[in-house]
């Protein structure tokens, strides 16, 4: 995981947007302009038709995060943006590990690593096996480090996805905004 510098904090930003071409650039541009590196980014559909969710992980100072999120929310096609510290969300990442099949031959070691890490095998081919693990970055990295001696051919990790702990629905947030707005 990227180290935090000074008073930096890690934030997960959830952005609800219209499903429109170009919004990805508009949103990443807000970070680029401020020279903020995006540590992870995931775009997906939501439970609401036509509305996408961007989940972005960045590191920045507590006094800057609000300003940045308001700039995101200001974009015409962004419905609402929220930011959270790790404590305020439930989050996961998915990692895949491609291992040579022979790593499994002759010893139970790799199988034990998989079991101990609550990972699972999702594909077995003559030449390679693909292992999947869901978890926090520390956990998927730990598994990577343990598998490394047996020859990881390829490792990939998804961006973070997160669900916020507060119970308030997006719809309610938007209704509140409607009520305080004029058009």
């Amino acid at each position, binding site marked *: 995981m990227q180290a935090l510098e000074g008073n930096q904090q890690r934030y997960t930003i959830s952005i609800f947007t219209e499903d429109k*071409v170009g919004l990805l650039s*508009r949103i990443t541009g807000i970070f680029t302009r401020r020279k903020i590196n995006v540590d992870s980014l995931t775009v997906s559909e939501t439970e609401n038709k036509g509305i996408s969710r961007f989940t972005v992980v960045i590191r920045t100072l507590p006094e800057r995060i609000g300003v940045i999120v308001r700039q995101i*929310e200001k974009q*015409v096609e*962004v419905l609402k943006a929220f930011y959270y510290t790790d404590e305020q969300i439930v989050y996961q990442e998915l990692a895949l590990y491609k291992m040579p099949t022979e790593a499994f031959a002759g010893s139970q070691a790799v199988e034990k690593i998989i079991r101990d890490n609550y990972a699972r095998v999702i594909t077995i081919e003559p030449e390679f096996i693909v292992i999947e693990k869901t978890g926090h970055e520390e956990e998927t990295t730990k598994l990577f480090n343990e598998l490394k001696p047996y020859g990881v051919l390829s490792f990939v990790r998804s961006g973070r996805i997160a669900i916020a702990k507060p119970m308030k629905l997006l*719809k309610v947030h*938007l209704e509140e905004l409607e009520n305080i*707005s004029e058009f």
Partner: protein
Amino acid sequence: MLLQQEAETSTAFHTQTLMGECVIAKKGISGAEAVVLSLLAEGVECVFGYPGGAIMPVYDALYDYRDRLQHFLVRHEQGAAHAAQGYARVQRRAGVCMATSGPGATNLITGIADAMIDSTPIVCITGQVGKHLLGTDAFQETDVIGISMPITKWNYQVTRAEEIPEAIAKAFYIAQSGRPGPVLIDITKNAQTEIFDFQYRKCLKIRSYFPKRKVDIDAIQRAAELINRAERPFMLIGQGVILSGAQDDVKEMAEKAGIPVASTLLGLSAMSVHHPQYVGYLGMHGNYGPNVLTNQCDVLIAIGMRFDDRVTGRLDSYAKQAKVIHIEIDPAEIDKNVKTEVAIVADAKEALQALLPLLEIKRYPEWMAKFKECDAIEREKVILKDFAPTTPLPKMAEVIHMLSQKTKGKAIIATDVGQHQMMATRYYQFDEPYSNITSGGLGTMGFCLPAAIGAKIGKPNREVIAIIGDGGFQMTIQELGVIMQYNIPVKIMVLNNNFLGMVRQWQQLFFDRRYSSVDMQNPDFVKLAEAYRIPARRVETREQLSDALDEMLHSQSAFFLEVMVEKEDNVFPMVPAGAAVAEIRLE
């Protein structure tokens, strides 16, 4: 199950855009004609632009509608964007500009960036290569959507004719609502030629866009309490006051609550400089009192302004002693630069109208006297020197002062960027609203001439005077052709110091007078203006000035006046970049 879920969400979220009644319909027309009809439906009377391959169908349609929609052919697309800005500032609605794909569109970019940072509503329409050619590096294909993304409030690429009416309706709605700004619609050539049944409906609402908040009465009450208890309240007004038309409300508040008022560069002309509560102009080259006393007030009421660094100087020593009330339409500006005690996210006029009845009648004679004391200091140390005829050539300040007196502060003053801009905005005694047109946030040299043209077209009955430096004049000088071709009676005054004066001043003060690439060998501007058939005159001595200004002001047509001014004049006061407002230098 899935169906049910979809049904639920469609009631939860209304449709993406709410469109009004159909205002114009026409069957079987081209996308190009639809563009023109859409503009007419928005009440557009004129367009600034330049044709080229990818937008030729629209130009062909413009030909049919030439008696209802006037097109001004600029000489460079940057001029089209600035002219649309000048038009928008005086007309208080979106200006429209048009360009072809590729270089036409990229030439608009400076103007769009300027409109973005100065919150000016403009609608830019660019042609684009046909849909099937997108991404092939076709002739004059540029990713204009990508390039303009960070400098537009919204942009959209239209690839089918049917999208045109809604895209343009949204463009006008977005450009003009909330905090205004530039929008760009890129229209592929096939969309311009496709035939479809046109129906125009105005855009009333976009579900993801909340342009304006209702006034929060609770915040208003907290603000009123702070103001009523204040001992040294101070009001700062920005362009937001002008955009919302809150000039009278500001005046009323200043009069009732006895609060001194200072203006940002873009807020100038919102309040008459002759008003007894008006104490001057903020910022790097603003007045001494408002800058210094920002750090002595106890309640700072900022209205429709964004605490630009040219206003605040070093932030960690800006108004630290004050409780800040920020009235601002754009929530993203709240706490961006200056921490607020009370934020009122609302239109300035609506907020002030809610606030006014809660304010007590107050007078602060001692506090007001402090501004007077500072004025006296500035007068002695700066203004009298600026006005004193001590140099062989007149100084910029003298020229502006005389112009101000002759026009009684009633003209629309467009300025470019540099020393002349700061002198013009310092010494022109604005007495009418909507009179100051300048490039503030971007500081775009070349802005003035085309912006003045747009302003004159927007307000033909007002005197429009373009005040430009010899450097900036040459950045968009070709727009003299527009003045010639359409007989636009703009008055142009170039204050010629044969220098990139503002840069020279910085080199003198901060780089040991190492004058690096700031002296200019200039052409004969008078002959040049005359070549464009614009009556022209040069002032080479102080004695000629008054008569020349009279000739310019009495001219019924456009007029060009070149005034040779003192070469190494400096603009003071000055808050050096990165210094605190209280560290303002008087010499």
